[in-house]
């Protein structure tokens, strides 16, 4: 055996600032895009930045952001929940029906919505975590089932704003100290979930599972419990979103939030959450939701031909993920170069 005379080969230490910057950059770049977009639009049409204009954007983004937060939890564990849209539809309708017929109040509506959402999430979660079946297939399946159920229950009925109790409607349009409830709820949820994911051991386990499920198992991470939690949270937040939908729009038919699953996944992806799991934050996802919503509003305000809107949104989505990716690639290369400089 050779004696260990020399010191260990020096390798780069303290890449903290750079790495942290990259991690933050994901959120920062979305924020940057958002600022540019808003600034440009405001120059073209100052009314865009009026109190009403800003309030509208935040109100519109809130529901999407809530769903994106739930979806992030699931996606981080290398799973996906395609059923969120249908859960929102089901919750909005059933809750609407319940409160309008029985004349129940706010609390009952919220509890019912949460319960329905939790049950849907639980079903998804049990199928995925306990039976170990692929998430995409299962949640595509539950998407169809829940949607079918929603349509079956609704069957062409409509809940009208007039039938919805006023306290519930106030939740949708009211505010505290000038801050509307909806964005307030979304931000609170975001901060709580974000803090949990970053600062608690069990929160880190979500990332571990998505990063390498096999290693997570060997490390004794309770995979099933975490995945189940992710789905139940996603379901719960979809339940909240459903109730808020009812509160905000008042009029509800069976088709609400139809096709939103892709919108939510888009927001999450734009927000820098890796679809293959292990990477991303709820802040990014919420910002992604805000960005997508803002783009939608901006195009209307800038009087872009309605026909171009979808095309532009699609294009911007591709741009967002491409830029994100290019930044990541450049960063890896920079890290490699730094390695090189350290080496001699």
């Amino acid at each position: 055996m050779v004696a260990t005379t020399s010191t260990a080969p020096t390798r780069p230490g303290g890449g903290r600032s750079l790495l942290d910057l990259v991690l933050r950059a994901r959120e920062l770049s979305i924020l940057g895009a958002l600022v540019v977009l808003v600034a440009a639009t405001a120059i073209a049409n100052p009314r865009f930045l009026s109190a009403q204009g800003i309030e509208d954007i935040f109100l519109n983004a809130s529901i999407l952001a809530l769903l994106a937060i739930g979806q992030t939890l699931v996606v981080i564990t290398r799973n996906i929940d395609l059923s969120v849209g249908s859960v929102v539809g089901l919750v909005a309708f059933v809750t609407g029906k319940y409160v309008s017929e029985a004349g129940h109040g706010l609390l009952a509506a919220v509890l019912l919505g949460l319960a329905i959402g939790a049950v849907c999430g639980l079903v998804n979660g049990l199928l995925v975590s306990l039976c170990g079946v692929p998430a995409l297939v299962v949640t595509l399946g539950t998407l169809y089932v829940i949607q079918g159920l929603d349509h079956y229950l609704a069957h062409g009925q409509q809940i009208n704003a007039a039938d919805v109790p006023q306290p519930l409607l106030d939740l949708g349009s009211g505010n505290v100290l000038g801050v509307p409830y909806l964005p307030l709820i979304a931000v609170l949820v975001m901060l709580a979930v974000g803090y949990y994911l970053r600062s608690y051991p069990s929160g880190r386990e979500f990332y571990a599972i998505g990063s390498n499920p096999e290693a997570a198992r060997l490390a004794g991470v309770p995979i099933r419990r975490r995945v189940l939690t992710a789905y139940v949270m996603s379901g719960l937040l979809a339940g909240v979103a459903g109730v808020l939908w009812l509160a905000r729009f008042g009029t509800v038919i069976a088709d609400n939030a139809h096709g939103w699953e892709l919108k939510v996944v888009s927001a999450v992806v734009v927000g820098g959450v890796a679809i293959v799991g292990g990477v991303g934050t709820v802040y990014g996802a919420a910002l992604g939701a805000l960005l997508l919503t803002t783009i939608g509003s901006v195009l209307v305000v800038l009087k872009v031909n309605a026909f171009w809107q979808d095309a532009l949104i699609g294009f911007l989505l591709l741009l967002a993920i491409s830029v994100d990716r290019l930044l990541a690639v450049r960063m890896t290369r920079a890290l490699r170069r730094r390695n090189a400089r350290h080496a001699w």
Partner: protein
Amino acid sequence: MSEPAPVLALVEVSKTFGAVRALDGVSLELRAGEVHALAGENGAGKSTLVKTFAGVHRPDSGQILLNGRPVVFHGPADAQHAGIAVIYQEPTLFPDLSVAENIFMGRQPRAGLGRIDRKAMHARTAELFARLGVSLDPRRPARGLSIADQQVVEIAKAISRDAKVLIMDEPTAALTAQETARLFSVVRALREHGCALLFISHRLEEIFELCQTVTTLRDGRRVACEPVAGLTADDLVTRMVGRELDDLYPKQEVTPGEVVLKVSRLTREGAFTDISFEVRRGEIVALAGLVGAGRTEVARAIFGVDRPDAGTVEVSGRPLRPASPMAAMAAGLALVPEDRRQQGLIMEMSIERNLGLTRLRALRRGPFISRALERANAADWAVRFQLKYGRTGDPAGVLSGGNQQKVVLAKWLSTGPTVLIVDEPTRGIDVATKAEVHRLLSELAAQGLAVLMISSDLPEVLAMADRILVMHEGRLAAELPRSQAGEESVMSAATGQRKDTV
């Protein structure tokens, strides 16, 4: 002197996978203050035994005793709670998380309200690395770590647990002498603190250096359990293989032919700089160096996996199109990659299909793949390499680590290359097979194959190579002909203390 009671023990444990009896009535006792070695050929059941201790596998029959009391582990978490730490044969890291988080996942140091105390976590990680004599940044993500560094992180993870029992499944397979020595000093310290240790390695000299007791497995059965003192390497091999072993390094003398691989001024920023060398027909050239010296990167660039920033590669006098493994293969190159799980094999694909993957064209009849040819091809190589398997139709993932390595080797040799690059060809291979692989490489070289061998196993390098290229921090530090090569000369070049003109 009465023996201390075993901390952890297996009693008559059996475990079968389908038709394979991986463990057959095996008993084993781990005692505090003792390093217990587990020896055996590839597929003897060592890793299965480890996973039984770790709670990954549940025994079909038999018992696990913890401090003399029977226990049942329902999963790895149970075993961890019982104070058992395991270094698995294959690194199991979270690529997206920082090295420190990898080490402390699930038991991070806490600050108030149950929050993670990152500062403490990073400090403790740095401490661990200092103990192991490596300087890795605790904050860097695990993605992109070399296999060796991954192994180091695994080791750090296991020793950070302050466990009563530490089980190590081939922890040194990826390490060079230097890190191995560091690991051993840590292991000895743990032993003195009263830890019970189980150590697995195919490098027999390590067993003699480190361990007090050795248990030998053959075909899932325990054939011996005895003190290491008084045992010779030959005894151990005989117990493992059931017969005397011929020469471990059957190197044939050959006169090198014309140059077939010519690498000129190859550079890839951040990995290696200005690498030039030649390999002739019939020659075995070893590329030696410390972990992270950049050897794997050189091999990848030659084979076209990565695009070099500068420099050229010529095969048989013709320049090679960069960054295309397809072109490299067409020119007669073959690369047995370092990481067999990620790059060498498709775990869920059958053995025969894995073997056929490099020669899809040759296995055709008309436009279609011939299953018969494929099966014949697989059966042929299985015999040549004495593969231990159920059926060639079984998934490659169920093979033991060493047998997987054989499949990867066979997969590349079957392409009939003119230049064979092997990156750690005998990592995790048992002595008998190692001898087999060496004989094979040496025979093929004698038949005119040019071999470029990357290896961290110094005796192997010294015994098998006609010429040794030593890399230090991304540059060629020395070129030593067989006659001048010795442990000292290679190591001093590898550590940068000696520079020979190349």
